[in-house]
């Protein structure tokens, strides 16, 4: 399913999107399949599956630890695409990874592997618009969305450039800093939501962990909420994981629904 279809389906119901991140292979590839199903049951509309890289500079301690568990569990790009291909879910899946893994596999092969395993979008936190030309071209050819991030520091001229490049949704980084759950919402977040003027859906991530925050984000005008560290934290604790993932997903989704 394409990301745009998902968003228009949600729009008809006047509903915001819950985008859930977990790291593939954390702690095992088999575990991930089960967790994805649980997130879908809880109401996730899109799932971001991290493809673990050894040096994740945009991630905070929680996701770093998840990535480390996944790498220790033997996750590789080959296993990743096989696993994703075997998932039986009917929502868009997005791969989130660092540029070197794409570069090493070969941009074309990477994008084709995404297409054939059923991935709808690609997020690369260390690939700014300037360096993205070749990958963007390949994504377009293979009908895969290349999702860009904008930050509170993004200048107006860069914003324009990014908004013309980005497809699927625009990933708004809620605050300066790396990924990681926080209890508050930064003032800069609603400011940023206002600044991003586009028809492409806007999803806000970095630091969101509960239903109340999710509601605030949607009320501030976002089309979706991205939550990662809070889910990865549940996996780290390792107890009753599928039920807890499902419960958190449905808490977040409830928050999102109330907001509209």
């Amino acid at each position: 399913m394409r990301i745009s279809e998902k968003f228009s389906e949600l729009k008809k119901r006047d509903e915001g999107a819950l985008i859930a991140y977990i790291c593939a292979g954390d702690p095992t590839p088999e575990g991930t399949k089960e967790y994805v199903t649980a997130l879908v049951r809880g109401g996730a509309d899109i799932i971001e599956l991290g493809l673990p890289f050894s040096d994740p500079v945009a991630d905070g301690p929680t996701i770093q630890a998840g990535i480390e568990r996944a790498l220790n569990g033997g996750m590789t790009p080959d296993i990743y695409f096989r696993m994703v291909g075997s998932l039986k879910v009917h929502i868009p899946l997005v791969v989130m990874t660092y540029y070197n893994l794409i570069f090493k596999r070969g941009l074309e092969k990477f994008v084709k592997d995404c297409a054939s395993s059923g991935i709808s979008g690609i997020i690369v936190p260390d690939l700014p618009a300037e360096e993205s030309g070749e990958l963007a071209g390949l994504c377009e050819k293979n009908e895969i969305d290349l999702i860009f991030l904008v930050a509170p520091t993004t200048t107006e001229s860069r914003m324009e450039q990014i908004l013309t490049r980005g497809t699927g949704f625009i990933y708004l980084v809620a605050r300066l800093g790396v990924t990681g759950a926080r209890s508050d919402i930064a003032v800069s977040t609603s400011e940023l939501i206002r600044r991003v003027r586009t028809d492409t859906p806007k999803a806000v991530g970095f630091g969101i962990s509960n239903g109340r925050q999710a509601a605030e984000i949607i009320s501030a005008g976002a089309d979706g909420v991205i939550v990662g560290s809070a889910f990865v934290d549940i996996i780290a604790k390792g107890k009753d994981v599928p039920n807890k993932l499902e419960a958190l997903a449905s808490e977040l989704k409830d928050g999102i629904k109330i907001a509209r």
Partner: protein
Amino acid sequence: MKQELKSTKFGKYGGQFVPEVLMPALEELTGQYEKYKEDPVFNEELDYYLRDFAGRPSPLYHAKQLSREYGVKIYLKREDLVHGGAHKLNNTLGQGLLTKYMGKKRIIAETGAGQHGTACAMVGAVFGIKTEVYMGAKDTVRQRMNVYRMELMGTKVIPVKSGSQTLKDAINEAIRDWVANVETTHYMIGSVVGMHPYPTMVRDFQSVIGKEVRTQIMEKEGRFPDSIVACTGGGSNAMGIFHPFIDDDVDLFAVEAGGSGLKATDKEALHSATLCAGEDGVLHGARTKVLQNKYGQILESSSIAAGLDYAGVGPELAYLADIGRIKPRYSLDNEALEAFHDLCRLEGIIPALESSHALAYVKNAAASGELGDVVVINISGRGDKDLETVLGMNK
């Protein structure tokens, strides 16, 4: 736009592969650097600190005993005599002044051997700027003395316990800090690595080494050397001495750390010889040569010299190696150690283990004639920091 893009690269290497949050800061830094680079007031102040604080120019010393032993005429560029005991201060004085001129309130840095961290600490103290240094937990143990030195000068040393707990992880952590504090903080990268403009800027600040050699060698020899040899971790002492000679008929040898041999598993390399054995990849914001496995996961590197122990290398060196302008070579741990003892015994100079790799290469290659008759070796630092390591190896 196109042209701007182009200048961030050396051929296909370099660039800015960083989170969007940092892009505006890199734009600002590039602009400010380009402005002050040409500014007479800035340059006068920098020259003053290089002379009266750092002790430049550093001597070019004809090492007669070593020349006899190795069979080629050897000049040593004495960066070990620069304040702090390494070439690192050339760069941190430049970036420190820039920090001051830009009005940033805080400096962060990564360090491997602790030499760059020490150079940051000196600059933080002398310019009165709060300084915090990330250092791999493993390195804080093997380079304990440098941790004390930094702390004495008022710098906070933050041990990094993630990943391999060495330089690459310290850089990761410094980037994460910068992402969170980019508006108030300058990230002071210690080598010609990372995203544009760092490889260019650090090279320019280090070029004082090669500029001095040009004058000094003319005075002593009446001609340029046949070759220049420098150890290469990230590549800043190498680019610093190479760059002013890039258009001259001088062979340039970049000597990497061969560790215990150019072998690697899926997770770690027994060496840090990135130019010799790495492949194209993207690490810490730049496309360059990288030690990585077949999937692109970065390998843990290894070397007796903490300052060379890094899985990447400056993008300009990768480019110059590709076009054949520099010659990448390597020395093994035990060869470097042997050369370390040679210089101590024959010349009364205790070199850094990093610099000893350059010495070891000259020792090995002199007989082949590849170096010509007159060689300049960059002694990038002094070896006091390495005494514990050397004593441990001798046991």
